[in-house]
């Protein structure tokens, strides 16, 4: 294999470990008279753990710092080598000092730690057999570690009433050891307001004020943050397996573009849960609830498990020959391939290579192609910061994207960034950043500045210096004014053409801009975040232009010159990131060029007869209306759909090929930064479900290869490695120089033979006994990185850890054993692979940004039809994949139309009344699928010219348009329609309830019949 990295295409970034230590200075401490070199600004507990020594703890968290609440990490500190008595200190609250001497093994601190556990055990129940934490319980590990092995207490235990915290997080307060980690995470770290700690002394209670679903987007982290079983994953508990029985593989979250690293656990052929997989640059220790609880779609009833349109000769199994026979009829047809941002990079690439660039579509509409062009342009100029870098920012400007809903983990990182002001303030009086409580107390309400310029209220508004809600056009206008004023305030003389015309803004906007400029000029690490939510290429272009200006040498020089006497100057040029909508959006962008077809062009080409058939690769064509789908059906000779679940397109397809979802597939996703990350098969799918690239390979072989129409030749593609070789290998045939992916494909092999199962996995010899009494051979993996077995290398030997475990550390807290230091990067770290984009001029020329017609029309504000409709984002709703989780469906609180009360008065609408919305521009008046009923909700945070919709089932692209353009008609529904709507909503809720129950029953049945697979390969490999 070609292992050379072409540095032009792929950069190996070497990010320093700045989140943990601001320098690399080390000093020496003596632990039980053994010297260790440790980082000089850490606390003693982190230092001891960094050296892989066992010291029990509860309240300290590598990412949340120290509060000294649990007293578990006590050690004896000695004055000098002659001091044999020492004094007890809490190691998490003690800074390391050069030459410091401490004892872990001495009698007094050992006894003390044992007694701390002993006290906790007076109240901790004996319910380990029914506790979902069993087998990965930090409390259990720590108890064993301290040597507390016998019960002495015989009195009554304190008991509590538990709360119903919603569908995701279970609550069992009796297990609580009052370490305060949950409330510190939920409230302090993630900014939640509906969870707190109540009572005092022996009656402390952690929960909500009253029963009800947790409101934070990050509530699922309580499951991992809690050292014992107070908070557990309800979806996992419902279909439970012990951690040691789970087969796990490293994976990447499919739900947004951040690309959090996750570990998916499987048992008996069904996926059980998602846990965080530590990645120091991206998600660290935390995931959002969409990622943790959204995995249910792989077990959903909508999964496609058989082929459609292919006749199998044998009733038992489908063979390659069957597929070939069916496809033989399609020879000679001219195909267009539509890729998608949720299919793997290699599948998309393969599709494009197979059909040719001129026959490839990324599934984007004309408008989206223009957004892609600008986004690519931004990616080609600036490298986007990782979440760890985001956390180090001291100024954040968010433009037109509710990141709390579209990429929640990014929002959590932004929240941490805002703490930098108080961390810095505390550092001024010598308080270390890890002194969590002290920093928060001393910092008070001091926050680094966040400026939010959005078209809807967001959950970050509470910590924003200023949050201004404007229509998308006004946001753009405001940015232009901001740019102009920044330039003039920096003293940089203008030399452009339009400089004399001052861009006018209203008082509110001017106040925002003035405040922003003041803070921006003081910022050392400013950051701008934008996104796709408003579907506006021209907004992205404006952001790009602003960033370009702020990063220009003239601007920086001018700022430094004027600010030299006054304030500290900017040290790092402003960073920028644009959040795309899906997990592999950026990977797909890398394949888009000026030849790539938009979805409108596909229809045109079908009409003109240039092509006659289409292949949809994991593409549900979300923005096609029902009518467009029908048109597509009528115009196409053949529609081949490769997907994991049913969609509108699979319903009309001639041939449906079932593909593996994330848990059953191998491949790469590219996150918002362009970072290429591999996900691995957790378990082998049941045939005929297989990787989409295997199906593509069958199609290519049957339709093109033996006619000399493909590059495939005699190449056998049996594994991802083969595919990579094919996609990157034949360099003579690879005519394009901008082939971004070839080096990634040739560089992906890092580990070999790591076990997917724990060494304690049970039932191997008997779990298939009802199918065959012979012990079944373990499935052979085509990807040699991981084995479907407990045999193989331990998880810590690879940077892609399938799960985390270390001797004595069964919970995820074991991760420090595999980090260079606590909260540092993994010892087995690998180079990041970041896609670097070249200039996109041809693409920009092909898809120019249409300037918005409505700019600078401030006088129009009085026209009552001049409202702008923007669909609010919701992390659990809106996209196709979300609908497969009945829990998400049930969380929807009903369609809402938010509007300012002044505007409601003007329109003659009343709070609480129903309105009927008809989206007319997207197809003809096909009322059924384009009309929605919504309740009017007055929100005076909104300006008078903006309407926020929160409409179930409204495709994401139906946003950002004005009512006067006849894209959207709003009328008052009659009573019958209201009754119908209420019934529909009620039915949807009840259906979700049924789905939940049926899904669980179905999964429990399939547990009993695990199909035997000898090789996790394609169709003929059984």
């Amino acid at each position: 294999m070609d292992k050379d990295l072409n540095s032009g295409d792929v950069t190996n970034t070497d990010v320093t470990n700045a989140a943990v230590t601001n320098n690399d200075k080390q000093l020496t401490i003596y632990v039980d008279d053994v010297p260790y070199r440790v980082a000089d600004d850490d606390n003693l507990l982190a230092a001891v753990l960094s050296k892989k020594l066992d010291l029990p703890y509860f309240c300290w968290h590598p990412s949340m710092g120290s509060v000294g609440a649990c007293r578990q990490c006590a050690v004896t500190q000695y004055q000098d080598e002659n001091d044999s008595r020492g004094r007890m200190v809490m190691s998490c609250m003690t800074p390391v000092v050069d030459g410091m001497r401490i004892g872990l093994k001495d009698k007094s601190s050992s006894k003390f730690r044992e007694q701390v556990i002993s006290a906790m055990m007076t109240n901790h129940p004996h319910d380990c057999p029914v506790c979902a934490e069993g087998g990965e319980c930090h409390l259990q590990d720590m108890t064993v570690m301290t040597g507390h092995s016998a019960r002495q207490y015989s009195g009554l235990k304190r008991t509590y009433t538990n709360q119903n915290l919603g569908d995701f997080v279970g609550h069992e307060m009796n297990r609580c050891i009052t370490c305060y980690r949950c409330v510190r995470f939920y409230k302090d770290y993630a900014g939640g307001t509906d969870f707190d700690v109540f009572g005092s002394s022996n009656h402390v209670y952690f929960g909500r004020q009253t029963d009800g679903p947790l409101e934070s987007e990050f509530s699922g982290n309580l499951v991992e943050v809690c050292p014992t079983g107070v908070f557990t994953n309800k979806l996992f508990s419902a279909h439970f397996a012990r951690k040691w029985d789970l087969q796990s593989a490293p994976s990447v979250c499919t739900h947004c573009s951040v690309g959090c690293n996750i570990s998916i656990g499987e048992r008996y052929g069904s996926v059980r849960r998602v846990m965080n997989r530590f990645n120091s640059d991206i998600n660290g220790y935390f995931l959002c609830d969409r990622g943790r609880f959204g995995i249910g779609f792989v077990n959903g009833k909508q999964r496609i498990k058989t082929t459609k349109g292919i006749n199998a000769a044998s009733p038992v199994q489908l063979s390659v020959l069957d597929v070939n026979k069916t496809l033989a009829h399609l020879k000679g047809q001219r195909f267009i391939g539509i890729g998608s941002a949720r299919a793997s990079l290699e599948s998309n690439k393969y599709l494009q290579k197979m059909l040719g660039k001129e026959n490839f579509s990324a599934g984007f509409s004309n408008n989206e192609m223009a957004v892609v062009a600008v986004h690519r342009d931004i990616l080609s100029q600036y490298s986007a910061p990782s979440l760890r870098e985001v956390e180090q920012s001291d100024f954040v400007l968010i433009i037109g994207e509710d990141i709390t809903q579209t990429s929640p983990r990014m929002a959590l990182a932004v929240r941490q960034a805002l703490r930098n002001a108080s961390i810095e303030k505390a550092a001024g009086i010598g308080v270390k950043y890890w002194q969590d409580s002290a920093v928060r107390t001393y910092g008070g309400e001091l926050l680094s500045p966040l400026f939010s310029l959005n078209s809807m209220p967001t959950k970050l508004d509470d910590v924003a210096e200023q949050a201004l809600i404007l229509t998308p056009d006004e946001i753009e206008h405001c940015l232009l004014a901001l740019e102009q004023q920044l330039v003039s305030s920096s003293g940089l003389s203008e030399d452009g053409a339009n400089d004399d015309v001052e861009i006018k803004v209203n008082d509110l906007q001017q106040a925002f801009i003035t405040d922003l400029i003041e803070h921006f000029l003081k910022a050392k690490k400013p950051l701008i975040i934008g996104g796709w939510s408003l579907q506006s290429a021209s907004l992205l272009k404006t952001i790009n232009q602003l960033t370009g200006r702020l990063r220009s040498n003239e601007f920086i020089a001018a700022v430094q010159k004027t600010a030299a006497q006054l304030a500290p100057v900017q040290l790092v040029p402003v960073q920028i990131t644009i959040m795309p909508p899906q997990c592999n959006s950026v990977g797909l962008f890398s394949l888009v060029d000026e030849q790539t077809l938009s979805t409108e062009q596909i229809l045109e080409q079908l009409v003109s007869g240039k092509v006659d058939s289409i292949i949809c690769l994991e593409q549900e064509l979300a923005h096609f209306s029902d009518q467009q789908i029908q048109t597509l059906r009528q115009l196409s000779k053949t529609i081949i759909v490769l997907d994991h679940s049913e969609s509108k397109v699979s319903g009309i397809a001639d041939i449906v090929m079932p593909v593996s979802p994330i848990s059953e597939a191998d491949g790469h996703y590219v996150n918002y930064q362009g970072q290429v990350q591999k996900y691995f098969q957790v378990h082998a799918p049941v045939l005929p479900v297989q990787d989409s690239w295997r199906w593509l390979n069958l199609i290519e072989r049957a339709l093109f290869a033996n006619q000399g129409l493909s590059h495939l030749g005699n190449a056998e593609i049996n594994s991802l490695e083969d595919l990579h070789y094919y996609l990157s290998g034949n360099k003579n045939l690879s005519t394009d120089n901008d082939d971004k992916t070839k080096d990634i494909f040739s560089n992906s092999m890092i580990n070999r033979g790591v076990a997917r199962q724990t060494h304690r996995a049970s039932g191997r010899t008997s779990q298939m006994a009802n199918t065959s009494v012979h012990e079944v051979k373990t499935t052979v993996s085509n990807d040699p990185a991981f084995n479907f077995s407990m045999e193989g290398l331990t998880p810590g030997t690879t940077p892609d850890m399938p799960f985390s475990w270390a001797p004595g550390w069964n919970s995820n807290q074991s991760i420090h054993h595999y980090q260079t230091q606590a909260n540092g990067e993994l010892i087995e770290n690998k180079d990041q692979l970041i896609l670097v984009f070249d200039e996109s001029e041809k693409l920009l020329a092909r898809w120019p940004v249409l300037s918005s017609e409505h700019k600078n029309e401030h006088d129009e504000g009085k026209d009552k039809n001049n409202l702008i409709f923007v669909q609010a984002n919701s992390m659990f709703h809106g996209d196709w994949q979300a609908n497969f989780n009945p829990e998400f469906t049930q969380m929807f609180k009903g369609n809402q139309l938010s509007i300012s009360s002044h505007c409601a008065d003007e329109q003659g609408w009343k709070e609480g009344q129903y309105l009927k919305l008809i989206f007319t521009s997207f197809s003809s008046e096909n009322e059924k699928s384009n009309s929605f009923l919504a309740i009017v909700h007055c929100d005076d945070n909104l300006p008078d010219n903006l309407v926020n919709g929160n409409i179930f089932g409204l495709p994401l692209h139906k946003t950002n348009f004005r009512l006067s353009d006849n894209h959207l008609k709003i009328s008052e529904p009659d009573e019958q329609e209201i009754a119908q709507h209420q019934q529909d909503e009620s039915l949807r809720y009840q259906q979700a309830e049924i789905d939940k129950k049926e899904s669980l029953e179905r999964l429990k049945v399939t547990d009993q019949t695990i199909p035997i697979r000898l090789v996790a390969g394609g169709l003929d490999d059984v």
Partner: protein
Amino acid sequence: MQIIKTVTLDYRQYLTEKEISEIEHEVTIMETRESAGIEALKIVQSHRGWISDDSLNAIAQLLAISSAQLEGVATFYNLIYRQPVGRFVIHICDSISCHLNGYQKVLHAIKTHLGIDYGQTTEDGLFTLLSNVCLGGCDKAPVMMIGQQHYEYLTSEKAVAILNGLSQSTDGNSSGDFLDKAEVGATIDAKIVEVKND
């Protein structure tokens, strides 16, 4: 149907003008609004005798903090009552000095005299009995506190006499000085409620 529409009424309709102005006064002398939480709870309790869920929600709204956060404060302090209490709340010390000096006998006498246990209120609504961890009168143990008053060197007889005295002073009127019936009664309709729709 699980769609629940939450109608949150204005705290101004629930709290009296006097309460609001007293709380706002506390706010002006604190660094942040949320710091006035304890004082606000004390103020409303002084007017109403205890802190109901509605009072709690109203104060939280007034201070612009979450009700969970205010609940954390309210439940932390044993002198904020989250359940209705009698006109006289007896806090009897059960800490070490009182324990050594025989508070058990005093406690038994009180319980027998009133016919209630810890956490209960007499039927006439006059007395509520609670335990307390140290009242700071160890040199005068056993000690109990009723209202603002400490009673020291208690014996069973003395305790019962004190209770009888208090009982007679009220003529069986259980509503304390704090309860301004006219004001509070007017606001009962304006509760902060969750209305279930459908």
